[in-house]
Structures are given as C-alpha cells and as structure tokens.
C-alpha cells in the first residue's frame, strides 16, 4: 500500500506547479488551468488524509470543492469570453485600462 506521505508529497508538487503556473503564465486560460491544478492538489491531499484518518470528512470536502470548481469554471470562461470580445486578446498583461 502506498504511504500517505507519498500522496501528500505529490499534492505539494502539484500545488507548487500550479502556483508557478499562475505567477509565470500570461495567457488567462493557462492561468486558470493552473488554479484548477492547485484546487486538485488540495483535493488529492484531502482524499489521502481521509484515507489516513479512516473517516469520510475529507471525501465530503472533495465533493464540495469539485462543485465549487465547476461553478468557477463557468464564471471564469464567461469572463474570458467577455474580455476576448472587447480586446481580441486574453493576455493578462494587456489588462491595463484600470490604473492609477
């Protein structure tokens, strides 16, 4: 049986990859995918912890996170489409109309 530590380490790696993606990528869709990766890193950690503790709270938590992530996808893609219509680009460096 794989040790819980292994899962948690994998979750940390995924989380760091996601964070780096958010900070380094300039394409809004890729930034958004990196956020999803971070959420799934947390999901993996939750499931691994739930197995370790032998209770279902972690699994329950994951169901809610998946639901919330789905809602976020819907809103996020809609906003990306709105931005693309007005700017013909989804590069986040070009979001500079608001400054002061």
């Amino acid at each position: 049986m794989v040790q819980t530590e292994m899962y948690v380490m994998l979750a940390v790696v995924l989380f760091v990859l996601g964070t780096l993606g958010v900070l380094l990528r300039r394409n809004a869709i890729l930034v958004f995918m990196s956020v999803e990766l971070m959420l799934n890193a947390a999901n993996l950690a939750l499931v691994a912890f739930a197995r370790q503790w032998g209770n279902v709270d972690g699994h329950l938590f994951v169901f809610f996170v998946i639901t919330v992530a789905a809602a976020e996808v819907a809103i996020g893609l809609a906003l990306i489409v709105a931005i693309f219509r007005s700017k013909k680009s989804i590069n986040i460096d070009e979001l500079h109309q608001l400054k002061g």
Partner: protein
Amino acid sequence: MGNEFDFLTHLPAIMPEIGLAILAIVVLGLDLFLPESRRRSIALVAGIGLAALALTPLLWGPPAVPTGIGPEEQNQVLLFWGGMVRHDVLAQVFKVMVLLAGAFTSLMSIDVNGIGRKGEFYLTIIVATLGASLMSAAADLIMIFVALETTTIPLYILAGFKRNDGRSAESGMKYFLFGSFMSAVMLYGLSLLYGFTGQTNIYALADFLTSPAFGENPVPVLGAMVLILVGFGFKISAVPFHFWTPDVYEGAPTPVTAYVSVASKAASFALLLRFLVAVFPADMMIGGAEIHGFWVQLAAVTAVITMTLGNVVALAQRNIKRLLAYSSIAQAGYTLIGLAAIGAQEQSVAAVAFYMFMYTFTNLLAFAVVVLFSEATGSETIADLAGLSRRSPWLALTMTIALLSLGGVPPAAGFFGKFFLFQAAVAADLTWLAIYGVLMSIIALYYYLVVVKVMYVDRSEDESKPIPMSRPYAWVLGVTSIAVLILGTVGAQVVFDWALANASTLFA
C-alpha cells in the same frame, strides 16, 4: 447536538438563509414574468425583501447559554446542523449587517443604467448575501470554504456585470483571477488542517492540535495558518494582498463596489475572528512555539502596513472610487487593530463588530452619493464634485457626513468606531498601536476633507443643474445618514453592548 436530529430546533439558525433562498426564487420569477415597463419593481422587491430579512436574525436570536458551563457544553448549545454553523451573537450581528448591505445595494442600483432593470443582477446580490450570511456563522472547514465561495463567485459576476464595458469586464477578470488563486491557496491550508487533525469542526481542532497525539512540531501548523491567512488577507484587502482592490473597485459598477467594500469585507472579518479565536486560542503553544502570539503579532504588523499604505496612497487619488478603495484598505487596517487586540477578549470582538457595523452604513452612504453623481454626470473625478453644495445641498451634506464618519470625526459614527478599537488596543497592552492608529486617522482626515472642500468651496459652471434623485435613493441616503448619526451619538453604546453580550462564548 442531541443524538436524535430534531429539524425544528435547527431551523432558527439558518432562518435568514432560508428567506434569502426564497427571495432569490421570487426575484427570478419576477424577472421572467414582469413586462419591461414594470421591471423597476424588481429592485424594490429585492431591497425591501432583504431589509425585512435583516429582522430574522433578531427574531430568531441565538439560544440562551446557561452561565457557568464549560466550552464543551457551550458548543453543544450553540452549534447547529451537525456543527456546520454556530448560532451566536457574533453571527447575529454580522448577519444583520450583510443583509442590510444587500438591501441598500439593491435599492441604490434601481436607476443605474445597464443593471437597474435586470433581475439577474438582484438574484446575484441575494446569493452573495446568502454566502456572506453563512460566512458569519460558519464553524466547519467545509462550511468555511463553501460559504466563502458562495460569496465570492457571485461577486466575480457582479464586478464584470456590464460585460460590454471594457472596464467592467477587466475588473471582473482581475477579481476572478486573483480571487480564485487566493481561494486555492486557502483551500490547501484548510486541507492541511484537516490532515493534521482528522477533524473538520473548527471548535474541535484546537484541542487536538495541543494534545500529545499531534506531537511537538509547530512548523506544519504555522504553514497551514499562513496559507489560510493569505486567503483572508485577500478578502479583507490587507496589504500585501490589496493590489486588486483599486482596480476592481474602479471598474466594477458602483453599487457592486459598495457591496464588495461592505458585505464581503464584514463577513470576512467575522469569519477571520471566529476562525483564529477558535483554532488558535489564547496561550496556544505547540512544541514551545507561541502559535497564538504569532498571529496576534502578524495582525498588528499587517494593521500598521495596511493603514500606512492605504492612507498614504489615498492622498494622491483623483478618482473618487479609487479614493474610496484606498480608504477601504485603510479601514481594514484599523479593523485589524481590533484583531491584534484580541488580548482584550470580548472588548476587542465587540469593537471589531461595532466598527464593521458603522462602516457598513458609512460606506454605503458614500457610495450611494457616488452612484447618483456618476449616473447624472458620467464622471467619477473628484474635481467634478465642485459646487455640489450648490447643485444638490442634501447630497453634499450626506456625503460630508459619510466622509466625516470615515475620518472619525464626531458626531458621526466613525468616531466611536475608532474609539472602541483604540480602547481595546490599550486594554490589550498595545498602546503604541492605538497611538499609531490615531496618527493615521489624522493623515486620513486630509484626503476626506479635501473632498468636502471641493464640494463646498470650489465653484463650477453646472451649479444650476441639480442632480436628479428618485425616491428609493432618497430613502437610502436618509436612512443611512440618520443611522450614521445615531450610531455616533446615542446608539453607539447600545450596539456595542449588543455585540459584547455573550461574546465570551467565542473564547473556549
């Protein structure tokens, strides 16, 4: 929580939320069936409905807690729905606050071009209010995450609501990207807390973390705490996680800005207070490291940086919405003083609650004036407010009341708000922080008074053109300005005592 589940005893704890869900469906139905000519009434239904629901936390108040019982028994009395929500005075005060914020926001959107007649706008406000209301009571890691997202996701929609307006879409996009990033970071912190303890109820976490079963290593707990505090820092726009605030506040439709600055911030403070006090209680030590002392010091340092940056940058602003954005960053800094002064126990909880209560009315008042002004003139520049006292004397007067309250000048409510906060800081041996807060409020007075000066002293060519105002706006301005004045005089002690009553149940 008894062994058998009695539905009816659990209902009062979520009465406002049930009402909000019903109101959301009603608004959605009205949006479907009302003809274009009568759509203005959607805003009235939403506004009056939310205002009526603000009474439900008062009608179905928290259960009486017998005196002289331990924290375990207290939680048995106060936790409902399997420990998901805690029905106590803190939740009650903040629920009234966010429901009123939703009501005033709906009413001040009524004549705004592009959003006023859209049913889905009010639906989204109501859902965000539902999330904020749950946030004030959430007592479980799962509930915390779900409530936070129920508040934030509708706010992304609201910020980008005018999707054909490039600035609004950009504001929504920025809010969304930063917000989802920060909530992912926070979720990771929450998952670690669950991993360390195997529990999700925040009132069970502290006991486990200090028990021998957890071990002696404080580093993982501090790591999880920092990840979670990053998420909260974003929500309350504390420095260094404030960078989204000015852009989102400027680009979003003005009523939405008002809502974000008030309801979302107040609910986040309630949750932050409840979370930190429950999970990392006083004198918590793990392996010789002072976990409690760590966050208290962090709050003090963040308060100092946030007040400084907010106030100093606000001095240079020309756009009234950006000015209020930086002012709201500074106000978050003052409120953090109350958090740092948690050593004063109930007093600091009540100070934070009172500050947010008066800030809700004050900021809504200021933004209502900005909504009216920018709808009539299409301008958001401070210089264009010139001559407002001759154009619309009442508008200028109410804006002055709001600005004086934000600045902390009696008889407006802001004076007592700051007074209670600084009093709590002194009681918690943080006199230096209180003194720094006073100094910062003096700096802040400058930029608030500049706006007053522009309105009353500067002249403009448009002085003969009064700003048109419909009846709902008159109600919003009237009620909020009277509330600000009452909270600054006779009402201060009453509201403070209301928040103070039973605040001790927060401290296990």
